[in-house]
């Protein structure tokens, strides 16, 4: 064996090291891909936060047009940061936004909406997180984008911001035939 050959194990070790070093950075280990993508939004029955009559809200009430289902709570600081973006989306695209008030105090939640503005068409109460478990939710905020047939097209874990809206949600809404006001977005951003 020649002298250069002696360095082969060292080189191999360096390669393995490099694969390990870069390989573990490729993917966010916290990323939990939703098991619901491409599948129907689960059946549920939940009370309304506003206490309005009309009985429980069910899955059938989400069908008919694309809808954003946003899981939020007043105890969640990231939800506060996301709230303005939801209000902007509300003014920008005619998409239904349904809130799920997750493991929260309804009184605080109603006060929050009165104080900071209400981007939601309606809000559901998930007091004990049982609906969240059905949805594979493991924190707040999380947002599902459903098509008119009630299938989950996209899920965002963490806050929706301008970038997520522009890159992930608006194109999908446009593809589903929802007119997305792009110009307004730029004025808002500026």
């Amino acid at each position: 064996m020649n002298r250069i050959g002696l360095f082969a194990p060292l080189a191999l070790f360096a390669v393995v090291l490099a694969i390990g070093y870069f390989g573990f950075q490729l993917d966010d280990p916290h990323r939990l891909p939703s098991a619901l993508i491409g599948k129907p939004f689960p059946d549920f029955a939940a009370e309304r936060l506003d206490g309005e009559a009309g009985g429980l809200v069910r899955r059938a009430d989400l069908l008919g047009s694309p809808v954003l289902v946003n899981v939020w709570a007043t105890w969640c600081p990231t939800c506060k940061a996301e709230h303005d973006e939801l209000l902007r989306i509300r003014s920008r695209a005619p998409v239904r936004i349904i809130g799920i008030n997750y493991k929260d105090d309804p009184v605080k939640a109603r006060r929050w909406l009165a104080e900071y503005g209400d981007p939601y068409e309606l809000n559901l109460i998930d007091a004990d997180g049982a609906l969240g478990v059905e949805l594979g939710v493991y924190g707040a905020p999380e947002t599902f984008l459903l098509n008119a047939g009630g299938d989950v097209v996209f899920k965002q874990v963490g806050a929706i911001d301008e970038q997520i809206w522009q890159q992930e949600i608006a194109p999908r809404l446009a593809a589903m035939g929802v007119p997305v006001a792009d110009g307004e977005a730029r004025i808002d951003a500026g």
Partner: protein
Amino acid sequence: MRVSALALLLWCLPGWGASPVDVYAFPDAEAEARFRALIAEFRCPKCLNTNLAGSDAPIAQDLRAAVHRLVVREGLSDAEVRDYLQARYGDFVLYDPPLKAATLLLWGGPILFVLAGLGLIAWRLMHQRSAQLSDADQARLAKILDDA
């Protein structure tokens, strides 16, 4: 005075002063054993490298409650509980991921390494044999040793 002393005594009893976190009732020891085994088996979705049993994250508490409900009240089998959690949280919650296209490297990797090792050993053995001295070299070697 006597009432407050009594209250203090009661408070000292095991269970009274303890925090009411995760107190579950079980119909029998078998259900409890299954519950303990299941919550030890799943990974907490919020925290890496912690199982449901060992995590304080709110979602882990919720999932422990869900597993308890499925095992005790709905009478699901272990396999059904696994399916339930996997359907909602994906492979992420399983410490024992299923064999499929995306996990092929994970399961096949060790076999690949063993094969590569065997190949290396075979290559070394063959290389050694070819490195044995020819008859002419042996004669030369004997001559050198004789001279010395």
